[in-house]
């Protein structure tokens, strides 16, 4: 039975070549835009996240604390879930940095030796909002002289990025709705254009499935092909840009600090999302559109 419906669907597609091509183009462009849009939102959020991670807490240690003790602390911190990266700066390195910064001021350099500058640990968090808490905890560690971070800058940046993340999600949602609506109305127009014929077929004794199944398969076909093609185009674009080194090392999404996706996985995921959307929309969108012709 379903073989026959599938056969009828393909006969329709072949017979309505122009309409089919138009539908696939319209739906394909919609999916392409949806994909580009999703990518741009993810990219923005990744960049923002990278910025967030550069914000750091610096822990300065007392002079008497030996290096191995500090390295021990560093190892412990590295295994903390919330921490993205740590960087140990020894007294000597601190002095080198200091020299580099003040190389135009020999008088100042004269008066400073490497022993005055404290050793320190720079700590970057996965999520900006955990920085104040981490800083508080570091103050309680053994041998800590001072913990420093730019609290107000960070909290302002946090507010900003939260707004950007939220806007991103809202926009994604809106764009999903819009593109789904475009696809649905394309299918509806296709089906309405043969509404009279559908009624006639019912009047000569067709059961509902005879009328609706070929149309649903037809919609499934349009949705699948258009999303397959647009997903492929996006896949190629993403992989090429990634090979050219135009992207951050991996993608992340706001509000999910631990999420990190490679370009390849992202491109595949995006492709999958589009194909699933395409198939579901094509199939059920057609059902939705044909419903009104099945009343009698």
């Amino acid at each position, binding site marked *: *039975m379903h073989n026959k419906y599938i056969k009828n669907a393909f006969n329709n597609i072949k017979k309505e070549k122009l309409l089919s091509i138009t539908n696939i183009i319209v739906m394909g462009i919609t999916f392409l835009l949806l994909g580009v849009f999703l990518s741009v939102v993810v990219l923005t959020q990744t960049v923002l996240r990278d910025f967030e991670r550069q914000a750091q807490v610096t822990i300065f240690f007392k002079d008497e604390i030996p290096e191995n003790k500090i390295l021990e602390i560093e190892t412990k911190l590295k295994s903390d879930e919330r921490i993205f990266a740590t960087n140990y700066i020894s007294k000597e390195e601190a002095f080198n940095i200091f020299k580099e910064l003040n190389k135009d001021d020999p008088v100042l350099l004269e008066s400073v030796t490497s022993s005055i500058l404290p050793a320190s640990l720079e700590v970057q968090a996965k999520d900006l909002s955990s920085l104040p808490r981490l800083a508080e905890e570091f103050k309680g560690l053994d041998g800590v002289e001072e913990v420093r971070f730019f609290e107000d800058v960070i909290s302002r940046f946090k507010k900003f990025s939260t707004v950007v993340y939220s806007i991103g999600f809202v926009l994604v949602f809106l764009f999903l709705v819009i593109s789904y609506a475009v696809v649905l109305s394309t299918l509806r127009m296709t089906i309405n254009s043969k509404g009279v*014929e559908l009624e*006639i*077929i*019912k*009047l*000569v*004794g067709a059961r509902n499935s*005879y009328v609706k199944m070929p149309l649903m398969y037809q919609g499934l076909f349009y949705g699948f092909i258009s999303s397959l093609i647009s997903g492929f185009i996006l896949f190629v674009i993403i992989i090429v840009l990634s090979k050219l080194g135009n992207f951050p090392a991996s993608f992340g999404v706001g509000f999910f600090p631990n999420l990190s996706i490679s370009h390849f996985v992202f491109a595949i995921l995006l492709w999958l999302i589009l194909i699933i959307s395409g198939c579901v929309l094509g199939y059920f969108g057609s059902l939705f559109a044909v419903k009104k012709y099945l009343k*009698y």
Partner: protein
Amino acid sequence: MQIDFRDITKEYEQQVKALDNISFGIERGEFVFIVGESGAGKTTLIKLLIKEEEPTAGQILFDDVDLSAILKDDISQLRRRVGVVFQDFKLLESKDVFENVAIALDVVDSNDDVIKNVVPNVLSLVGLTHKMHSPPSKLSGGEKQRVSIARALAHEPDVLIADEPTGMIDPKSAMEIMEILEKINSLGTTVVMATHNRDIVDSFKKRVIRLEKGKIISDKKKGTYAQ
């Protein structure tokens, strides 16, 4: 009794009665003319019989099955036992003559061999073999009507209903169509035909049910148009 209308009323809009409390029965194998002025309710009566419309009140029995008890999913079963020739033909414009007839078989899951066999047969019965692959847009009114009859006959219905099958065609084609209907009737199919055509009704001397403003004003065996 094959078809039994009991106290049927149909209002499309409030207070406007297309059919007003009518009752009649049709026996298996009968040939019945339904006559009446434009707007008398002939098409409405046919629509009720294939459940294209629902009655506002009353009951229609088809082989003792109450139509109102037929579920939406089973309407197709009813329609397969009733062949309808529609007043406005209702042909599929995107399909050719052959396909228009074949669809009636395809919807009942006849296989391709049956379709290849039956369609040319019914088309030759209505004299349209030579137009098998023309689209409806290239046919005259009479030819369209004959395609519509061929489609209605394809699945060998128990009842053939024709809504003014001679309405839009010349007298000669009309007589040809009447011959087809009479032949089908003589083979045992019940035929119900709505018409305005006085000459045809008078020359056939069949049962005539006359509607006026939704009511039956006469019902005579071997009647004439003017009663």
